[in-house]
């Protein structure tokens, strides 16, 4: 297997997995918060928030990438501040790829979570409150376990989207082998050079396997969680 993929290809696969893992993990808490707010709270600007969350789904990815560069680049408002305060640089680094992937996958994550939260009967949460449980405990012991199937589905969808993210990533962090060259960027690069079809095809195969694997695992986990939630 290690001979089958060249070092550049291995690097691209490893980087993509790393980026997708962190982008999924870091966007989950925000995703849950936003989905909960959209599902349960009434507030001014709810439609604006909903629109903002879904924007990356509709905008050309290259536009999202450019906006990220403007905001989070070293001269950008947020980017400059991050570098001065935390020494954190995003543009042209793998950390930037994490941000780009997280933003692009966010709408999918939030949609799945919102549907799951809306399916939880608020009466169960009320019942928990009457038993003396404060809000955060109700969320942790009633809401969260009940949305677990949706959460898994959303996370896997987000992970798969992050694995495949290309446009925003290449615009924001470029395509530096070993640093920001993710799987799709590598495939794109191989296709630009003569004789690159073979490694490109191998990476395409890897992409398909990873995506299928992720879907299967999520399906299994979600089914198990759903059985538990159904109370059977």
């Amino acid at each position: 297997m290690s001979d089958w993929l060249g070092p550049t290809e291995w690097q691209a696969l490893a980087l993509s997995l790393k980026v997708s893992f962190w982008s999924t993990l870091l966007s989950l808490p925000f995703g849950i918060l936003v989905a909960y707010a959209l599902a349960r709270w009434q507030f001014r600007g709810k439609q604006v928030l909903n629109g903002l969350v879904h924007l990356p789904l509709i905008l050309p990815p290259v536009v999202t990438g450019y906006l990220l560069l403007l905001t989070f680049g070293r001269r950008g408002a947020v980017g400059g501040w991050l570098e001065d305060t935390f020494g954190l640089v995003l543009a042209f680094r793998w950390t930037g790829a994490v941000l780009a992937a997280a933003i692009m996958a966010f709408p999918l994550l939030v949609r799945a979570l919102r549907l799951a939260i809306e399916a939880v009967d608020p009466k169960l949460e009320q019942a928990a409150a009457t038993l003396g449980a404060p809000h955060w405990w109700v969320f942790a012991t009633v809401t969260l376990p009940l949305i677990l199937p949706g959460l898994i589905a959303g996370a896997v969808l987000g992970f798969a989207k992050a694995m495949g993210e290309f446009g925003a990533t290449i615009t924001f962090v470029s395509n530096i082998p070993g640093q920001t060259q993710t799987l799709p960027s590598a495939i794109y690069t191989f296709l630009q050079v003569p004789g690159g079809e073979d490694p490109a095809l191998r990476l395409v195969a890897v992409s398909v396997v990873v995506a299928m694997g992720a879907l299967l695992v999520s399906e299994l986990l979600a089914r198990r969680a759903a059985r538990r939630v159904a109370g059977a």
Partner: protein
Amino acid sequence: MSLSVDIRHRLGTLNLHIAFQAPTGITALFGQSGTGKTTVVDAVAGLLRPESGHIELSGQILFDSASGRSLPVHRRRLGYVFQDGRLFPHMSVRQNLTYGQRFAALNKGPSLNEVTILLGLNDLLDRRPGKLSGGEKQRVAIGRALLSRPRMLLMDEPLAALDSARKAEILPYLERLRDQTDIPILYVSHSVAEVARLATTVVVLEAGRVVRAGRAEVVLSDPDMVRQLGVREAGAVLSATVRAHHADGLTELAFSGGRLFLPRMNIPERSPTRVRILAQDVLLSRVAPMGLSALNILPVHIIAIREGSGPGVIVQIQSGQDRLLARITRRSADAMELRTGDAIYAVIKSVSIARTDIGAG
């Protein structure tokens, strides 16, 4: 322990203004659907914020619109048993039961073991709510509320979703709760039979107002309440003691007005019972009847006669310390020349009293 409620709230086209006191025991909020019963209980629990008013439990303010105070739901410590159970589907029965224990006051209250025995839950502990029958679910819901060690229990039609067999299965548990714990219970119901069996205090609601409140025996034997209770459902509740079980299948009860013979019931001798006697099951007679098959002939006197719009009249009669209602036709009342204060006889047919209308007192 006493709950005092005085709230105003608009509910669709209905303007609620409900004020009452609920002392220890079971206080039944009785009324047809749409009279605001659930709104009141939700307001007491803190699930609904009334537009204005004041709710207080034993001196502690739960809600007060004047000062803007409202205790959050989880700090009110009121156990709520919902009509639909609302068990947590992803937890076992045991986990459901102990959910509120983490937040319960440590000092006093029943243990898991005591509640399990009281409600007969021993065989269910490791099951999931999805595998329980409706009656079992409600018993678990009651146990779960009890184990949160509430200062008061709120029950919103806990039996309404159950068939009569399941109701009969749960009623004795509720009676035990009433008689063996000192937790006051606010019990919402539109069933006169349930109220008669369980309530110590009755608050009758109509169109968002309290039309009558008082001790159950008094309210249920009030001829002016017959319209609210429904003529077929109207009937008084007697407190009695089991004197003997006879070999011919009858049980003899003693009450303040004498003896009653009823079909055999499974209540030990000398224990207190409550018997509901429907107004339509009581006959009146000017003279002591002779050669009649009915076993229960009580000397009574008339306290009040109420005429309705229909062909019937309701006669309130006194037997010893207890009061009964009799529903007879106006024609009979005229023919017998019944007057307030007259000494007459009431006849009650033993077998007409429904088994479910006899309960622990």
